[in-house]
């Protein structure tokens, strides 16, 4: 088998969409035998690429030892950080990329952007690239095939947490020989980084909103439930039906009428309007995005359906519900409060989407049979959602992948759906007993599911009657009177501790001022400065040990964001560095005192709403 055949085989197995497109390109034959690219034998018996662009010759590798050159080149990069994303311009013959690939850890990624189809084809013909092709941590982008996906892949790989773990590099000489393309590559990365910073700034700004929402929603703790309250309430032989809003829902939605009263129907928020249009009332509505405006639930009938939501949801959305609010996945301060009265709020892997979250809920509640409806996780032609709705792909901005559909053919999916698909498959594989039926009647093949039509699955599994409405009506709220009182007392203690935190933060400001004064004169440590540093450490330990600190931490996220974005600013002067550190610390204490003032009033109101 030739090197090209071997490489194409690897592509076919590991990157089928890429393979098919490259195959069509190779048929055109215009990229082979290009005179501008030469393969030169090197002194150590390997070979190097030489490229002539506009009469200028570029040796893309060492003519002595290209492998050693690549090793020494790669030594400049630090791979100690977590979740590293390496964005590399230029594949060349693979030597440099390989050295990077060998240094990647499990969670790291290597994005290789190759601007030249001619060079890529030449590399495929003369070098064994199968190790790079088959490595799942390597994302290969060829300008002519999937180059436009670079910005989408960056969005997927790079986030706030690993923004500063990025390594941006280029194959030697590629920056000169493909200057325009290189400039665009760098601009794309810069734009993505800026987008993340802006986004994080927005998120940090909304953290105050989320704290505020949570406190406002404390009023519902008197009458709400948490998901774990439903454990044991529904007979396990009753099936759960998760209704998502994929395009196939249009095909079989009418069948669900036969399932009502013989199953528990969980509708994701986007699917509710289609159900109500067909006069099918789900047993639960599931909505998980705390920032979402619930225009999907504008039908007044929604107000009488139990709502599964997060406690950080917009207060006005919960206010409309007359039936029962069931909180899902309480975290942070609220979870801590519930634990004081022995409530297990559960640990759910929401999987990133409402449908995966609903699956997680059904798994926790112990359903033996879970039936998926409208879970296409793929395009139906151009249609993305039920009702013939098309969400523009370019707007969605997702890397496209090709997967197998339920008939064994190829079908296109978005990269985020692809991730949910893999999530489902992994979650299903972990189910100890029970089965998952895919009754979508379309879309991607979800491995581990049994394929049935919705009609067949209803006939087989929806045999026993159940009155979910009665179960909910008879379900007592999560907190008894006594437990509610304990929570009230816990909040009263937290209010007291907020005042103590403010006092300590003010002490911290005072100590920082004294240290700044001292270090301005001399950076030499004295017994007094060391003692002050110890005091600061004790203050920090005190503040962070308080339960209510978690609310402060959330609240000051916007303020600390700007400090963290300066974290990698290195001033080449020890005194300036020291002064900068203590100014930063002082500002943090100031933020804490302001946060205490904000939180005190809303926590006090939350306490009143519980009484």
């Amino acid at each position, binding site marked *: 088998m030739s090197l090209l055949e071997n490489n194409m085989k690897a592509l076919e197995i590991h990157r089928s969409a890429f393979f098919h497109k490259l195959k069509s390109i190779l048929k055109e034959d215009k990229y082979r035998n290009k005179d501008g690219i030469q393969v030169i034998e090197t*002194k150590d018996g390997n070979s190097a690429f030489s490229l002539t662009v506009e009469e200028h010759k570029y*040796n893309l*590798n*060492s*003519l*002595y*030892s290209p492998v050693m*050159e690549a090793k*020494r*080149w790669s*030594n*400049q990069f630090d791979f100690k950080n977590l979740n590293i994303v390496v964005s590399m311009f230029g594949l060349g013959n693979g030597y440099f990329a390989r050295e990077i690939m060998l240094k990647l850890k499990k969670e790291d990624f290597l994005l290789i952007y190759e601007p030249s189809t001619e060079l890529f084809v030449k590399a495929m013909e003369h070098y064994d690239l199968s190790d790079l092709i088959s490595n799942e941590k390597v994302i290969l982008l060829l300008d002519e095939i999937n180059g436009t996906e670079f910005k989408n892949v960056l969005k997927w790989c790079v986030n706030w947490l690993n923004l500063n773990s990025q390594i941006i590099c280029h194959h*030697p*000489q590629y920056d000169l020989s493909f200057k325009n393309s290189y400039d665009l590559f760098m601009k794309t990365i810069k734009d993505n980084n800026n987008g993340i910073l802006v986004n994080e700034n927005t998120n940090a700004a909304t953290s105050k909103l989320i704290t505020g929402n949570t406190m406002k929603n404390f009023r519902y703790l008197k009458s709400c439930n948490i998901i774990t309250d439903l454990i044991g309430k529904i007979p396990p032989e009753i099936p759960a039906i998760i209704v998502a809003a994929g395009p196939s829902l249009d095909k079989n939605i009418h069948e669900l009428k036969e399932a009502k009263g013989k199953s528990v129907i969980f509708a994701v928020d986007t699917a509710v309007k289609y159900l109500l249009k067909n006069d099918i009332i789900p047993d639960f509505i599931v909505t998980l995005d705390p920032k979402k405006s619930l225009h999907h639930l504008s039908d007044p009938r929604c107000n009488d359906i139990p709502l599964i939501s997060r406690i950080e949801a917009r207060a006005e959305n919960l206010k409309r519900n007359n039936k029962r609010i069931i909180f899902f996945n309480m975290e942070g301060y609220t979870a801590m409060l519930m634990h004081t009265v022995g409530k297990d709020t559960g640990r759910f892997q929401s999987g990133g989407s409402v449908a995966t979250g609903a699956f997680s809920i059904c798994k926790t509640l112990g359903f033996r049979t879970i039936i998926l409806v409208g879970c296409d996780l793929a395009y139906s032609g151009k249609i993305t959602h039920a009702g013939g709705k098309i969400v523009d792909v370019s707007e969605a901005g997702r890397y496209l992948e090709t997967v197998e559909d339920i008939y064994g053919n190829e079908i296109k999916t978005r990269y985020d759906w692809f991730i949910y698909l893999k999530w489902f498959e992994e979650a299903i594989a972990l189910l100890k007993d029970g089965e998952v039926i895919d009754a979508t009647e379309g879309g991607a093949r979800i491995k581990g599911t049994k394929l049935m039509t919705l009609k067949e699955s209803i006939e087989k599994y929806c045999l026993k009657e159940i009155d979910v409405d009665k179960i909910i009506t008879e379900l007592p709220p999560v907190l008894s009177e006594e437990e509610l009182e304990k929570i009230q007392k816990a909040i009263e203690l937290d209010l007291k501790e907020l005042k103590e935190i403010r006092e300590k933060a003010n002490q911290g400001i005072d100590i920082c001022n004294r240290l700044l004064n001292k270090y301005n004169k001399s950076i030499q440590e004295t017994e007094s400065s060391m003692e002050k540093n110890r005091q600061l450490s004790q203050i920090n330990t005190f503040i962070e040990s308080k339960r209510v600190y978690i609310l402060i931490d959330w609240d000051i996220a916007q303020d600390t964001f700007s400090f963290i974005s300066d974290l990698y600013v290195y001033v080449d002067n020890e005194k300036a560095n020291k002064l900068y550190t203590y100014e930063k610390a002082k500002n943090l204490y100031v933020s804490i005192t302001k946060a205490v003032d904000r939180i005190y009033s809303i926590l006090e109101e939350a306490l009143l709403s519980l009484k």
Partner: protein
Amino acid sequence: MNDLQNRINEIIKELDKIAELLYQQKAKEGYVLLNGALGKIMTLMDVIGRLKTERENSFDLDRLNHNLKAALEAMEKQDNVMLADILNYEIAEQLKESTNL
């Protein structure tokens, strides 16, 4: 003689460092060090030229001159990888061979 060997070893280390910088496309830093290293090589050539014994005179100055010329050509073409290769595989190699002078 120890002094000569010390000089040679020092130059070899510097050339290795320079080559590493050039392979890593840190040309500016590489050239700063190269400036110093070339000065030391010139001094070395001067010292070797004045050596009296036959063994000492076995150092091939013509070969070194030739490689320095090649290095200069690489610099003119701004081919930093070629420059690194010459420093690493030609000049440093010759100096390593000569450490038993």
